[in-house]
């Protein structure tokens, strides 16, 4: 297949899953297996693109011109390809988990659930491969809208209220701020193409640079920077597979991925460094990291605690962009991958606990680790990766970010990163400790979650190890994004 065809396949293939869910709505086995086949095929289609161009940047593939200067177009570049690979790869795992979870919990409206999931994945692929801001924005909004029914899935008052917050903040910020920033960019630069080295240098100056950057940082609500983070805890009312794939990987990563893209390809790292426009964003991100960690400490609901932890970890990526240094950008890219693997493990563990014994509060989980050793073992590994301890993948991202901070001569940021790691220990470890050490209060016999729930979380826990040892591949792969001059 040539590249345009491959790109079309990657974006359209997940939609086949919608069809499968529609046609086989009443035959659960056929439905879930065909969706799984679609997921596997999508992953291989992404791999196929990787085989074709490796970590080079492809030519632009223009699909459709909407208004002159404004077209739906795609371009493969390393950061986006990595994001597409993570999302499609973890989709397979989450789908298996989701089938186990939804059947185990006897949830209603499963065809609608899996169909919306497919649309969301298609939108993520569009975001990952977009070659200009308009295309990215289009898929960004599709992603928001297609995940709304997933958050509201249970249909209870609580779920509807959560979904309302979710949609309100994401659509609100994107229309009021993100769109404004895009039109502004288009008005001054005449294009919204992602270009190596940025498109704004010399076109905008003075106080407008930090203002425009602010519009992007706050407008991209999916990056959950404080104070626009409330949607993420609110979205935790969704079934756990949604929290796992979408609110630990796809949706939130789409946010920080967009921030990185804007920083690297719209502003340009050098332009940001020269103007110092991103310094205030760096402090904001640092504040976001610490504040969200402290809030996480106070949550007793496991999923809410993980959600605030995600808010904090996402700010690492924003921080990487705001450092405006090559190592910082690389660290941001690594953090996308590492945090995805670690956090999805944690969420799947939370879901497995819920399926096995319907417990959601950490204070109830005393002694649970002894009856569910696999789940709590995987949780332990995921937590270590999030904290950033070797030999787990998460450590490299922290390492690169610290180097980036040193490179940009912001030594305080190194301190912030260290304090944050300590806070991570403080809010993640007690869960494990309580699980294994505390005296079990329940008389009821509790068993591990079903096999379909356990297998995926073991796989991703192993993935955290693998990422540590093979990080050089990933670094080599991502290096081109830090180059500023040269080929477009």
């Amino acid at each position, binding site marked *: 297949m040539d590249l345009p065809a491959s790109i079309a396949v990657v974006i359209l293939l997940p939609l086949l899953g919608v069809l499968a869910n529609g046609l086989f709505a009443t035959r659960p086995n056929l439905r879930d297996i065909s969706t799984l086949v679609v997921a596997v095929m999508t992953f291989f289609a992404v791999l196929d693109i990787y085989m074709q161009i490796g970590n080079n940047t492809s030519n632009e593939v223009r699909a459709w011109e*909407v208004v002159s200067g404004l077209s739906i177009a795609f371009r493969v570049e390393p950061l986006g390809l990595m994001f597409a690979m993570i999302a499609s790869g973890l989709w397979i795992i989450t789908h298996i988990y989701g089938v186990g979870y939804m059947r185990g919990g006897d949830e209603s409206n499963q065809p609608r659930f899996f169909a919306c999931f497919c649309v969301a994945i298609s939108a993520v692929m569009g975001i990952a491969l977009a070659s200009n801001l308009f295309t990215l924005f289009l898929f960004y*909004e599709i992603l928001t809208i297609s995940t709304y029914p997933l958050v509201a899935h249970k249909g209870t008052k609580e779920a509807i209220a959560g*979904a309302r917050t979710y*949609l309100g903040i994401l659509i609100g910020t994107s229309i009021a701020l993100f769109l*404004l920033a895009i039109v502004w960019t288009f008005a001054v630069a005449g294009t919204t193409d992602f270009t190596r080295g940025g498109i704004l240098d010399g076109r905008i100056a003075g106080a407008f640079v930090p203002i425009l950057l602010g519009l992007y940082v706050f407008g991209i609500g999916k990056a959950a920077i404080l104070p626009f983070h409330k949607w993420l805890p609110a979205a935790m009312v969704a079934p756990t597979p949604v929290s796992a794939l979408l609110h630990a990987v796809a949706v939130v990563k789409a946010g920080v991925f967009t921030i990185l893209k804007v920083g690297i390809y719209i502003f340009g790292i050098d332009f940001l460094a020269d103007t110092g426009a991103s310094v205030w964003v760096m402090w904001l991100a640092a504040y976001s990291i610490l504040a969200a960690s402290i809030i996480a400490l106070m949550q007793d609901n496991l999923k809410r605690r993980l959600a605030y932890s995600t808010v904090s970890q996402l700010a690492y990526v924003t921080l990487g962009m705001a450092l405006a240094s090559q190592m910082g950008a690389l660290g941001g890219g690594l953090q996308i991958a590492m945090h995805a693997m670690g956090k999805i493990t944690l969420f799947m563990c939370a879901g497995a606990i819920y399926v096995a014994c319907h417990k959601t509060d950490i204070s109830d989980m005393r002694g649970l680790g002894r009856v569910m050793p696999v789940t709590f073992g995987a949780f332990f590994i995921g937590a270590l990766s999030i904290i950033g301890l070797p030999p787990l993948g998460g450590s490299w991202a922290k390492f690169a970010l610290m180097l980036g901070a040193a490179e940009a001569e912001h030594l305080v940021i190194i301190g912030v990163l260290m304090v944050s790691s300590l806070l991570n220990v403080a809010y993640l470890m007690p869960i494990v400790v309580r699980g294994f050490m505390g005296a079990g209060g329940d008389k009821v016999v509790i068993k591990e979650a079903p096999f379909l729930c356990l297998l995926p979380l073991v796989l991703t826990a192993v993935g955290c190890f693998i990422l540590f040892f093979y990080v050089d591949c990933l670094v080599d792969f991502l290096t081109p994004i830090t180059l500023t001059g040269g080929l477009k």
Partner: protein
Amino acid sequence: MATLYEPALSLRDHLAILPVLLPLIGAPLIVIFGSRRTAFFIALTAFIGAFIACAALLLELRGGAPIVYYLGGWAPPAGIEYRVDAASGLVAFLIATIGMLVLPYAQVSLKREVELRHHSLIYACLLLCFSGLMGMVLTGDAFNVFVFLEISSLSAYVLIAQGAGQDKRALTAAYDYLIMGTIGATFFIIGLAFLYASTGTLNLADLGERIAQNTGNRSLNAGFVFIFVGLGLKIAIYPLHLWLPRAYTFAPSAVSVFLASTATKAALYVLVRFFFSVFQIEFLEHFQIISITLGLVGIMAMFSASFIAVFQRNLKRMLAYSSIAQIGYMVLGVAMLSQTGLTATLVHIFNHGITKAVLFMGAGALFLRAGSVFYDNLAGLGRRMPLTMGAMVLGFLSLIGVPGTAGFISKWILVQAAFERGLWWVAVLILLSSLLAVIYCWRAVELLYFAPNENNKIINNNIKEAPLMMLIPMWILALACVWFGLDTDLTIGFAGEAARTLIGGG
């Protein structure tokens, strides 16, 4: 096109008059052959004919030159001229499309809402109203505009009053509209009299030339203000909008669909025509208070009407207030006095026309099944009518301006026009006001789709999906909302061309 009139025999040469003539002939025929079934087919034939003529006009216009037609072979200024250019072609195409699609829809919805014996007269009024709107758009003669304005208005009053079968308040709503509309028409004709007195012509192109030579003439200024206020009433520019919410709320559903997506749009087109063809840009730039006022009332409409829409508990009323807000965006585009701004206005006329048609059609379908459009009675109804709901969600997304829908395109151009003029604060306000649209739209979606329906007495097992005759037009328009969000050849192509000729003095 030849400038001299040559006797023409083929139908093709009469294209410009057909959209006005066919329905005008159809209306009396319906009255003569009274039966309901015949009436429907006469109306359908006239609408389809008008639609084909409008589509053909658009194709002819691709060549660039306007199509000129002398009524009865009499050349202006003595005779009446019909003049179709990019601007009028686009608006006429919108009206024709809506007209053709609303008719099959009306056939079903009227059965539920209006007594059978009135149906054929409603079709006749619908044809008259359609013919009037078409005439306003296609004619090149100022007095002719007034005549057609009155034809469309009078038939609209009757149409709105037909809602009385469901709710007696339709009568007072129609009466309100009658009073306001008549005042508007009176202002308009007084303004025309001023123009005629100072220039001695009523042909729009002629008027334009003579006014350009006559700047600073006080009676012209007076005429301008009269025309502005008169049309403002018909367009429902804030704060002259008071007739609109009640009229749209209490009219039969099919009538709401038709009027909401065409009537105010045609009047706005006339305003644009008078502003830019007759008075022209130099006059407007000189008379700056008008564009400033227009911009301010536009912004006020965007916020206050959207804000009121948020608190409505009646779906049709909510949509009506949203219309007033959307008209705010359109007049804001006019107030920018720039090509991009005017393009935004014309594109939004088209895009909002199809968007609102979908939504009012959806509201009518819900009424058909639930017998009410109050939020309390609609809770959870969307789950029973997924196809209606799907079309409505597309409509709501377009109303919000989500990318990939028609509404986004108009918003994009409007915001760009604001940046072009250096009015970045206006750009901010435009986007902030769309947040209000998010709130009022999503309130409705959430209610229809996710609200529990246990307490809703109206929902029982008999509630099914709306009939195909409603669903097909609704889905055609819903898909058009997506189509025109991706392919802007027709909308921006024609609107941009129109703005170029209108402002470039063409």
